Protein backbone atom coordinates (compact mmCIF):
# COMPACT_ATOMS: atom_id res chain seq x y z
CA UNK A 1 0.00 0.00 0.00
CA UNK A 2 1.11 3.54 -0.75
CA UNK A 3 0.44 6.06 2.00
CA UNK A 4 0.30 9.67 0.86
CA UNK A 5 0.44 12.53 3.36
CA UNK A 6 -0.25 15.83 1.66
CA UNK A 7 -1.20 19.38 2.50
CA UNK A 8 -3.10 19.68 -0.80
CA UNK A 9 -6.83 19.85 -0.07
CA UNK A 10 -7.69 19.41 -3.72
CA UNK A 11 -5.43 16.49 -4.34
CA UNK A 12 -5.60 15.36 -7.96
CA UNK A 13 -2.47 13.33 -8.57
CA UNK A 14 -2.78 9.87 -10.11
CA UNK A 15 -1.61 7.00 -7.96
CA UNK A 16 -0.96 3.48 -9.24
CA UNK A 17 -2.20 0.63 -7.08
CA UNK A 18 -3.62 0.44 -3.61
CA UNK A 19 -3.27 3.62 -1.61
CA UNK A 20 -4.51 5.80 1.20
CA UNK A 21 -4.39 9.60 1.28
CA UNK A 22 -4.15 11.74 4.41
CA UNK A 23 -5.00 15.36 3.60
CA UNK A 24 -6.48 18.37 5.41
CA UNK A 25 -10.05 17.63 6.46
CA UNK A 26 -11.53 19.33 9.49
CA UNK A 27 -9.29 20.44 12.31
CA UNK A 28 -6.05 18.69 13.09
CA UNK A 29 -4.59 19.13 16.57
CA UNK A 30 -0.84 19.36 16.97
CA UNK A 31 1.02 16.88 19.19
CA UNK A 32 1.36 18.14 22.76
CA UNK A 33 4.21 15.84 23.69
CA UNK A 34 2.40 13.49 26.11
CA UNK A 35 3.86 10.21 24.73
CA UNK A 36 0.40 8.67 25.26
CA UNK A 37 0.81 6.95 21.89
CA UNK A 38 3.64 4.95 23.53
CA UNK A 39 2.50 4.54 27.14
CA UNK A 40 -1.29 4.91 27.23
CA UNK A 41 -2.69 3.56 23.99
CA UNK A 42 0.43 2.15 22.35
CA UNK A 43 0.20 2.52 18.58
CA UNK A 44 -2.47 5.20 18.55
CA UNK A 45 -2.51 8.92 19.33
CA UNK A 46 -4.69 9.86 22.31
CA UNK A 47 -6.37 12.77 20.50
CA UNK A 48 -9.31 11.51 18.50
CA UNK A 49 -9.78 14.03 15.74
CA UNK A 50 -9.54 11.73 12.74
CA UNK A 51 -5.73 11.82 12.64
CA UNK A 52 -4.98 9.34 15.42
CA UNK A 53 -4.30 6.26 13.30
CA UNK A 54 -1.45 7.35 11.03
CA UNK A 55 1.06 5.15 12.87
CA UNK A 56 -1.07 2.12 12.06
CA UNK A 57 -1.49 3.17 8.44
CA UNK A 58 2.27 3.52 8.20
CA UNK A 59 2.63 -0.07 9.39
CA UNK A 60 0.64 -1.23 6.37
CA UNK A 61 2.52 0.73 3.75
CA UNK A 62 5.47 -0.11 1.58
CA UNK A 63 5.80 3.46 0.38
CA UNK A 64 5.28 6.66 2.33
CA UNK A 65 4.91 9.67 0.06
CA UNK A 66 5.02 13.19 1.48
CA UNK A 67 3.64 15.86 -0.83
CA UNK A 68 4.22 19.19 0.78
CA UNK A 69 4.97 22.80 0.41
CA UNK A 70 8.61 23.27 1.31
CA UNK A 71 8.85 25.40 4.45
CA UNK A 72 12.42 26.51 5.14
CA UNK A 73 13.74 23.11 4.05
CA UNK A 74 11.12 21.07 5.88
CA UNK A 75 7.55 19.99 5.28
CA UNK A 76 4.54 22.25 5.87
CA UNK A 77 2.68 22.51 9.21
CA UNK A 78 -0.10 20.11 8.13
CA UNK A 79 2.25 17.37 6.96
CA UNK A 80 4.46 17.92 10.00
CA UNK A 81 1.49 17.69 12.34
CA UNK A 82 0.56 14.34 10.83
CA UNK A 83 4.15 13.14 11.20
CA UNK A 84 4.41 14.40 14.79
CA UNK A 85 1.18 12.58 15.63
CA UNK A 86 2.50 9.32 14.16
CA UNK A 87 5.59 8.52 16.22
CA UNK A 88 3.72 5.46 17.49
CA UNK A 89 4.87 3.84 14.25
CA UNK A 90 8.10 3.20 16.16
CA UNK A 91 8.66 1.67 19.58
CA UNK A 92 9.77 3.86 22.50
CA UNK A 93 12.82 1.73 23.31
CA UNK A 94 16.16 2.79 21.88
CA UNK A 95 18.59 1.02 19.56
CA UNK A 96 21.93 2.14 18.18
CA UNK A 97 22.06 2.26 14.36
CA UNK A 98 24.98 3.61 12.35
CA UNK A 99 26.51 4.75 15.66
CA UNK A 100 23.50 6.87 16.56
CA UNK A 101 20.58 6.44 18.88
CA UNK A 102 17.24 5.68 17.24
CA UNK A 103 14.06 3.87 18.21
CA UNK A 104 13.35 0.19 17.94
CA UNK A 105 10.88 -1.01 15.36
CA UNK A 106 7.30 -1.68 16.38
CA UNK A 107 6.33 -3.19 13.02
CA UNK A 108 8.20 -5.24 10.43
CA UNK A 109 7.47 -3.31 7.21
CA UNK A 110 10.33 -1.37 5.65
CA UNK A 111 9.17 1.99 4.36
CA UNK A 112 10.44 3.51 1.12
CA UNK A 113 10.11 7.23 1.78
CA UNK A 114 9.56 9.78 -0.99
CA UNK A 115 9.04 13.51 -0.77
CA UNK A 116 7.63 15.83 -3.40
CA UNK A 117 8.22 19.40 -2.30
CA UNK A 118 6.67 22.38 -4.03
CA UNK A 119 7.24 26.12 -3.61
CA UNK A 120 8.11 29.19 -5.68
CA UNK A 121 11.29 30.23 -3.93
CA UNK A 122 12.94 27.12 -2.59
CA UNK A 123 16.61 28.05 -2.14
CA UNK A 124 19.51 25.69 -2.76
CA UNK A 125 20.19 25.63 0.97
CA UNK A 126 16.57 24.69 1.66
CA UNK A 127 16.82 21.85 -0.85
CA UNK A 128 19.93 20.63 0.89
CA UNK A 129 18.22 20.77 4.29
CA UNK A 130 15.16 19.01 2.88
CA UNK A 131 17.22 16.16 1.39
CA UNK A 132 19.07 15.63 4.65
CA UNK A 133 15.86 15.84 6.65
CA UNK A 134 14.15 13.15 4.59
CA UNK A 135 17.25 10.95 4.95
CA UNK A 136 17.09 11.48 8.72
CA UNK A 137 13.37 10.61 8.75
CA UNK A 138 14.07 7.40 6.83
CA UNK A 139 16.78 6.49 9.36
CA UNK A 140 14.33 7.05 12.19
CA UNK A 141 11.65 4.94 10.50
CA UNK A 142 14.38 2.36 9.82
CA UNK A 143 13.40 2.59 6.17
CA UNK A 144 15.05 4.02 3.07
CA UNK A 145 14.71 7.03 0.83
CA UNK A 146 13.22 6.44 -2.61
CA UNK A 147 12.74 9.83 -4.27
CA UNK A 148 13.07 13.49 -3.37
CA UNK A 149 11.80 16.01 -5.91
CA UNK A 150 11.22 19.75 -5.99
CA UNK A 151 8.60 21.60 -8.02
CA UNK A 152 7.78 25.27 -8.41
CA UNK A 153 4.04 24.87 -8.05
CA UNK A 154 1.60 22.26 -6.82
CA UNK A 155 0.01 22.38 -10.28
CA UNK A 156 3.14 20.89 -11.88
CA UNK A 157 2.62 17.83 -9.72
CA UNK A 158 -0.62 16.99 -11.49
CA UNK A 159 1.34 15.53 -14.39
CA UNK A 160 3.11 12.91 -12.34
CA UNK A 161 2.08 9.37 -11.53
CA UNK A 162 2.82 8.18 -8.04
Amino acid at each position, binding site marked *: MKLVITDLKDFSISIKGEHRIIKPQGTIHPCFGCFGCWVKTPGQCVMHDGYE*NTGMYMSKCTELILISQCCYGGVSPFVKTVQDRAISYIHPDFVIRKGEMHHKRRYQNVIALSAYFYGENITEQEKKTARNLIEANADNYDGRVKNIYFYKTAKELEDILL
Partner: protein
Amino acid sequence: MKIALINGSPKTKNSASGILLEDLKSHLSQKAEITEIKLQKTFIPEEIAAELKTMEALVFSFPLYVDGIPAHLLSCLIQLENAHWQNREIYIYGIVNCGFHEGVQAKYALEILQNWCKKTELIWGGGIGAGGGGGLANMPSTKNGHGPKAPIDKALQAMADKILQNKRQKNHYVSVAFPRFLYRIAAQIGWRQMIKANGGKTKDLGKRPEEP
Protein backbone atom coordinates in the same frame (compact mmCIF):
# COMPACT_ATOMS: atom_id res chain seq x y z
CA MET B 1 19.19 44.94 26.00
CA LYS B 2 15.78 43.40 25.29
CA ILE B 3 15.78 39.65 24.87
CA ALA B 4 12.82 37.31 24.39
CA LEU B 5 13.21 33.75 25.64
CA ILE B 6 10.70 31.71 23.67
CA ASN B 7 9.71 28.27 24.87
CA GLY B 8 8.40 26.31 21.89
CA SER B 9 7.60 23.08 23.74
CA PRO B 10 3.89 22.25 23.66
CA LYS B 11 4.15 20.91 27.22
CA THR B 12 2.46 23.06 29.85
CA LYS B 13 5.04 22.21 32.53
CA ASN B 14 8.41 20.57 33.11
CA SER B 15 9.62 20.99 29.57
CA ALA B 16 13.30 20.49 28.89
CA SER B 17 13.07 23.55 26.65
CA GLY B 18 12.00 25.62 29.66
CA ILE B 19 14.78 24.22 31.86
CA LEU B 20 17.35 25.20 29.24
CA LEU B 21 15.92 28.71 29.04
CA GLU B 22 16.06 29.02 32.85
CA ASP B 23 19.73 28.08 32.73
CA LEU B 24 20.38 30.51 29.91
CA LYS B 25 18.56 33.22 31.84
CA SER B 26 20.80 32.71 34.88
CA HIS B 27 23.71 33.70 32.66
CA LEU B 28 21.88 36.73 31.26
CA SER B 29 19.63 38.27 33.83
CA GLN B 30 21.86 40.93 35.39
CA LYS B 31 22.49 42.61 32.11
CA ALA B 32 19.30 42.17 30.16
CA GLU B 33 15.62 42.96 30.11
CA ILE B 34 14.09 39.57 29.59
CA THR B 35 10.63 38.66 28.35
CA GLU B 36 9.54 35.05 28.63
CA ILE B 37 7.11 33.74 26.08
CA LYS B 38 5.50 30.35 25.57
CA LEU B 39 4.39 29.27 22.14
CA GLN B 40 2.19 26.22 22.60
CA LYS B 41 -0.44 26.87 19.98
CA THR B 42 -0.40 27.15 16.20
CA PHE B 43 -0.97 30.89 16.38
CA ILE B 44 0.79 33.81 18.10
CA PRO B 45 -1.56 36.44 19.55
CA GLU B 46 -1.08 39.80 17.83
CA GLU B 47 0.16 41.56 20.97
CA ILE B 48 2.88 38.96 21.46
CA ALA B 49 3.94 39.11 17.82
CA ALA B 50 4.13 42.91 18.18
CA GLU B 51 6.24 42.58 21.32
CA LEU B 52 8.67 40.21 19.63
CA LYS B 53 9.36 42.83 16.99
CA THR B 54 10.65 45.23 19.65
CA MET B 55 13.38 42.85 20.83
CA GLU B 56 17.08 42.85 20.05
CA ALA B 57 17.40 39.09 20.32
CA LEU B 58 14.99 36.17 20.17
CA VAL B 59 15.99 32.81 21.59
CA PHE B 60 13.85 29.90 20.45
CA SER B 61 14.13 26.82 22.67
CA PHE B 62 12.16 23.80 21.52
CA PRO B 63 12.16 20.01 21.35
CA LEU B 64 13.23 18.09 18.28
CA TYR B 65 10.15 16.50 16.71
CA VAL B 66 10.64 14.00 13.88
CA ASP B 67 14.03 15.53 13.08
CA GLY B 68 12.49 18.97 12.71
CA ILE B 69 10.53 21.75 14.36
CA PRO B 70 7.29 20.86 16.22
CA ALA B 71 4.40 21.54 13.84
CA HIS B 72 2.67 24.16 15.99
CA LEU B 73 5.89 26.18 16.25
CA LEU B 74 6.42 25.92 12.51
CA SER B 75 3.00 27.53 12.03
CA CYS B 76 4.06 30.35 14.37
CA LEU B 77 7.27 30.88 12.39
CA ILE B 78 5.30 31.16 9.15
CA GLN B 79 3.08 33.76 10.83
CA LEU B 80 6.18 35.67 11.94
CA GLU B 81 7.76 35.50 8.50
CA ASN B 82 4.71 37.26 7.14
CA ALA B 83 4.54 39.81 9.94
CA HIS B 84 5.67 43.32 9.18
CA TRP B 85 9.15 43.76 10.68
CA GLN B 86 10.28 47.35 10.79
CA ASN B 87 13.55 46.57 12.46
CA ARG B 88 15.35 43.56 11.05
CA GLU B 89 18.48 44.02 13.16
CA ILE B 90 17.34 41.26 15.45
CA TYR B 91 19.52 38.29 16.33
CA ILE B 92 17.89 34.86 16.34
CA TYR B 93 19.31 32.00 18.39
CA GLY B 94 18.07 28.41 18.60
CA ILE B 95 18.30 25.81 21.36
CA VAL B 96 17.00 22.44 20.26
CA ASN B 97 16.90 19.60 22.74
CA CYS B 98 16.31 16.06 21.65
CA GLY B 99 15.42 12.73 23.19
CA PHE B 100 18.33 10.93 21.59
CA HIS B 101 21.71 11.17 23.21
CA GLU B 102 23.49 12.92 20.35
CA GLY B 103 22.87 16.66 20.16
CA VAL B 104 23.92 16.61 16.52
CA GLN B 105 20.59 15.00 15.65
CA ALA B 106 19.14 18.50 16.04
CA LYS B 107 21.23 19.74 13.14
CA TYR B 108 18.48 19.95 10.53
CA ALA B 109 16.00 21.57 12.92
CA LEU B 110 18.57 24.31 13.51
CA GLU B 111 19.07 24.57 9.76
CA ILE B 112 15.33 25.01 9.28
CA LEU B 113 15.36 27.83 11.84
CA GLN B 114 18.34 29.37 10.08
CA ASN B 115 16.56 29.10 6.72
CA TRP B 116 13.53 30.80 8.31
CA CYS B 117 15.81 33.60 9.49
CA LYS B 118 17.08 34.09 5.96
CA LYS B 119 13.55 34.25 4.51
CA THR B 120 12.46 36.63 7.27
CA GLU B 121 15.63 38.71 6.81
CA LEU B 122 16.63 38.56 10.44
CA ILE B 123 20.15 37.79 11.68
CA TRP B 124 21.02 34.20 12.45
CA GLY B 125 22.98 34.09 15.70
CA GLY B 126 23.57 30.34 15.82
CA GLY B 127 22.35 27.49 17.95
CA ILE B 128 22.83 24.64 20.35
CA GLY B 129 21.77 21.05 19.73
CA ALA B 130 21.41 19.39 23.13
CA GLY B 131 21.24 15.60 23.31
CA GLY B 132 19.73 13.71 26.22
CA GLY B 133 16.89 16.19 26.64
CA GLY B 134 14.60 13.47 27.97
CA GLY B 135 16.67 13.36 31.16
CA LEU B 136 17.01 17.07 31.86
CA ALA B 137 13.94 17.40 34.07
CA ASN B 138 15.37 14.77 36.45
CA MET B 139 18.95 15.97 36.56
CA PRO B 140 20.46 18.10 39.33
CA SER B 141 21.71 21.57 38.50
CA THR B 142 25.36 22.07 37.70
CA LYS B 143 27.60 22.95 40.66
CA ASN B 144 31.08 24.34 40.13
CA GLY B 145 31.08 23.11 36.56
CA HIS B 146 30.20 19.54 37.52
CA GLY B 147 27.13 17.37 37.03
CA PRO B 148 25.31 15.68 34.15
CA LYS B 149 24.13 18.98 32.70
CA ALA B 150 27.57 20.61 32.83
CA PRO B 151 28.39 20.37 29.08
CA ILE B 152 25.03 21.87 28.18
CA ASP B 153 25.41 24.62 30.78
CA LYS B 154 28.79 25.47 29.35
CA ALA B 155 27.28 25.81 25.90
CA LEU B 156 24.48 27.98 27.31
CA GLN B 157 26.98 30.22 29.09
CA ALA B 158 28.89 30.67 25.83
CA MET B 159 25.66 31.45 23.99
CA ALA B 160 24.66 34.00 26.67
CA ASP B 161 27.97 35.77 26.16
CA LYS B 162 27.36 35.97 22.41
CA ILE B 163 23.80 37.21 22.86
CA LEU B 164 24.93 40.01 25.15
CA GLN B 165 27.57 41.08 22.64
CA ASN B 166 25.27 40.89 19.60
CA LYS B 167 27.49 38.24 18.11
CA ARG B 168 26.99 35.06 16.20
CA GLN B 169 28.21 31.65 17.15
CA LYS B 170 28.69 28.41 15.26
CA ASN B 171 26.17 25.72 16.03
CA HIS B 172 27.31 23.83 19.06
CA TYR B 173 26.31 20.20 19.58
CA VAL B 174 26.47 18.80 23.08
CA SER B 175 25.11 15.91 25.14
CA VAL B 176 24.42 15.36 28.79
CA ALA B 177 27.43 14.03 30.70
CA PHE B 178 25.70 10.75 31.33
CA PRO B 179 26.84 7.64 29.44
CA ARG B 180 24.68 6.73 26.51
CA PHE B 181 24.09 3.12 27.62
CA LEU B 182 22.89 4.31 31.03
CA TYR B 183 20.72 7.00 29.50
CA ARG B 184 19.14 4.34 27.35
CA ILE B 185 18.49 2.06 30.33
CA ALA B 186 17.07 4.93 32.39
CA ALA B 187 14.74 5.97 29.56
CA GLN B 188 13.52 2.42 29.06
CA ILE B 189 12.84 2.00 32.78
CA GLY B 190 10.90 5.26 32.50
CA TRP B 191 8.64 3.95 29.70
CA ARG B 192 7.93 0.81 31.76
CA GLN B 193 6.99 2.84 34.82
CA MET B 194 4.75 5.06 32.75
CA ILE B 195 2.83 2.28 31.05
CA LYS B 196 2.30 0.56 34.41
CA ALA B 197 1.11 3.81 35.95
CA ASN B 198 -1.45 3.90 33.13
CA GLY B 199 -2.68 0.43 34.03
CA GLY B 200 -0.82 -1.40 31.26
CA LYS B 201 1.88 -4.06 31.18
CA THR B 202 5.46 -3.83 29.98
CA LYS B 203 4.69 -5.98 26.97
CA ASP B 204 2.01 -3.51 25.87
CA LEU B 205 4.82 -1.11 24.89
CA GLY B 206 5.28 -3.29 21.82
CA LYS B 207 1.59 -3.65 20.92
CA ARG B 208 0.79 -3.68 17.23
CA PRO B 209 -2.76 -2.49 17.01
CA GLU B 210 -4.64 -3.09 13.79
CA GLU B 211 -6.38 -0.17 12.19
CA PRO B 212 -10.03 0.07 13.15
